[in-house]
């Protein structure tokens, strides 16, 4: 039996003894005529790291706003921490941490003051917030700049401070909307490393992203979203195995078009995708396929053999790329 979490919010035990924190059935969000989220079902369990992968405009942020009990669903049922967001919004939000897509720090205030202010929203005693804030600034490697205005921080530091802020209430569920969008590679890795530590400490994470590497690194389980709908669900590796081949051979030819070449190599692969700048050959063994391409006298400008990724899964399922 899982120990009951120490809050008044009821938990729902599923038959396989996983604790369900979020359950959505037929969730719909409309803005006027526009349907941002079009009837999706998903369930998020305690202790896992759950991802929403999809391109910009797939409906991820709208879903996050519903899960974080800010925006009410237009249709469908949603249960967060065992309660209905319509009636128990404030109670549920007291147990959630949210890292929004756009930074919303108080730039005129110091890092410490930002955490103090946010902690007060949860009605925590000042001394307790101070104690937690000190710990969290340590955790996010911002201790040395605790008293500096957030305005002076780099993009990566602001993100880390936002993450520290979202943890001030010691939430049962941490929701991260595009946590590393707009960060340089080094800053991204620093954020990932911190999130990975949270995950290993058992914090339940919900992450939206349009970066397949982020989804693969951080998520135990994810749903792939496109145009408001869920098109696939599962663990990253399982999704890749299910929807793609083991390896991919990427071929670049000159500027005179890939079309004719695609036909010429079609029989070498399970599937061939033609992108504006390259051909993707889905194969079991990339090197073998490349040798075959050369044997046919085709001379690509460049060739690359790599493993299949979630990007390939998305391309397979929707015919489009994740990042355009």
């Amino acid at each position, binding site marked *: 039996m899982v120990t009951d979490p120490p809050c*008044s919010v009821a938990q729902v035990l599923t038959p396989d003894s996983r604790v369900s924190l979020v359950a959505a059935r037929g969730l719909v969000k409309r803005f006027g005529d526009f349907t941002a989220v079009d009837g999706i079902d998903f369930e998020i369990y305690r202790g896992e790291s759950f991802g929403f992968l999809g391109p910009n405009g797939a409906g991820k942020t709208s879903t996050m706003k519903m899960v974080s009990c800010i925006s009410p669903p237009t249709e469908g049922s949603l249960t967060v921490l065992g309660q209905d967001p319509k009636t128990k919004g404030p109670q549920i939000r007291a147990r959630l941490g949210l890292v929004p897509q756009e930074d919303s720090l108080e730039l005129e205030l110091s890092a410490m003051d930002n955490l103090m202010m946010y902690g007060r929203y949860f009605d925590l005693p000042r001394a307790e917030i101070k104690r937690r804030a000190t710990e969290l600034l340590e955790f996010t490697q911002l201790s040395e700049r605790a008293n500096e205005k957030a305005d002076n921080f780099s993009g990566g530091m602001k993100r880390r401070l936002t993450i520290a802020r979202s943890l001030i209430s010691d939430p049962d569920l941490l929701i991260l909307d595009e946590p590393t969008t707009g960060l340089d590679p080094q800053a991204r890795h620093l954020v990932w490393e911190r999130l990975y530590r949270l995950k290993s400490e058992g914090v339940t994470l919900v992450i939206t992203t349009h970066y397949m590497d982020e989804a693969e690194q951080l998520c135990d389980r994810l749903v792939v979203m496109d145009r408001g709908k869920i098109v696939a669900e599962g663990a990253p590796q399982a999704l890749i195995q299910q929807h793609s081949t083991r390896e991919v051979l990427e071929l670049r030819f000159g500027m005179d078009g890939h079309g004719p070449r695609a036909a010429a190599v079609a029989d070498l692969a399970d599937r061939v995708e033609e992108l504006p700048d390259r051909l993707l050959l889905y194969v079991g063994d990339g090197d073998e396929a490349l040798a075959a391409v050369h044997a046919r006298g085709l001379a690509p400008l460049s060739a690359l053999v790599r493993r299949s990724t979630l990007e390939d899964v998305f391309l397979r399922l929707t015919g489009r790329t994740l990042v355009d």
Partner: protein
Amino acid sequence: MTTNTTASTEVTQVATTRPVQPTLGWAPWRRAFWYHATFWSRTWRGQVISSFLFPVLYLASMGLGVGKLVNHHSGGVSGVTYLEFVAPALLAMTGMQIASNESMWPILASFKWTRSYWTAVSTPITPRDLVIGKLSWVAVHVAMVGVIYTCVLEAFQTLLSPWAVLLPLAGVLTGLAYAAPIAAFTATQENEKSFPVFYRFAIIPMFLFSGSFYPISQLPSWLRVVVQFVPLYHGVAICRTLALGQGSLATTGYHVGVLVALAVLGAYLCDRNFRKRLEA
């Protein structure tokens, strides 16, 4: 202190695993209020000089300087010196000034630029808490400045009635009659373009034509009708009654009624518009 008791009762139930839990506590809006208070406490220094200096300068220039011209020619206004006439209007004008400044750029910033309202609604705070927190902060802000100004007016010996101790409250009421409707308007705006125009075509004319500098009997009759719809006019009238001890209960009740009605209507619209925007 109440904060800690509320928190600790809930803590005892859960003390086994986690030391302190977030609570909903009493009146969540007060946390939205503290947001503004905290913010102000970090940035007030620049304003304090002007807070003291402005009423002194204003009274010296309009009250004493122009007053000398008026008293010389007309022997004062409405039975008092010109200084005594213009001084109380300062409270209502300040209420309008602070309230309109607080309800335009800062609110839009909280929606669009700092996004601090979005931050707040991701916590147990609701849009209604934000509205109540904001309006109560405006009230406290006006009251603080109002107390200072009332002391300055007393130093200039312009207060003729003990009712003058209520002047800061009259300022607060005027402030709310502005803050609530303007905040409701701001909550529907996507950019700041309308603010300078509103400032120049509404706030400045109201400042100039609402009987602050001369009795509205000087105005042409059509303007006297228009002025009845201007909150500042009612605020100035209340302040003058309190400071000079003139005026009847009935007219004062009318002025107070208009301001209360505006504040209540504004607060209702605010609540609606904040919710519409934040829960979209």
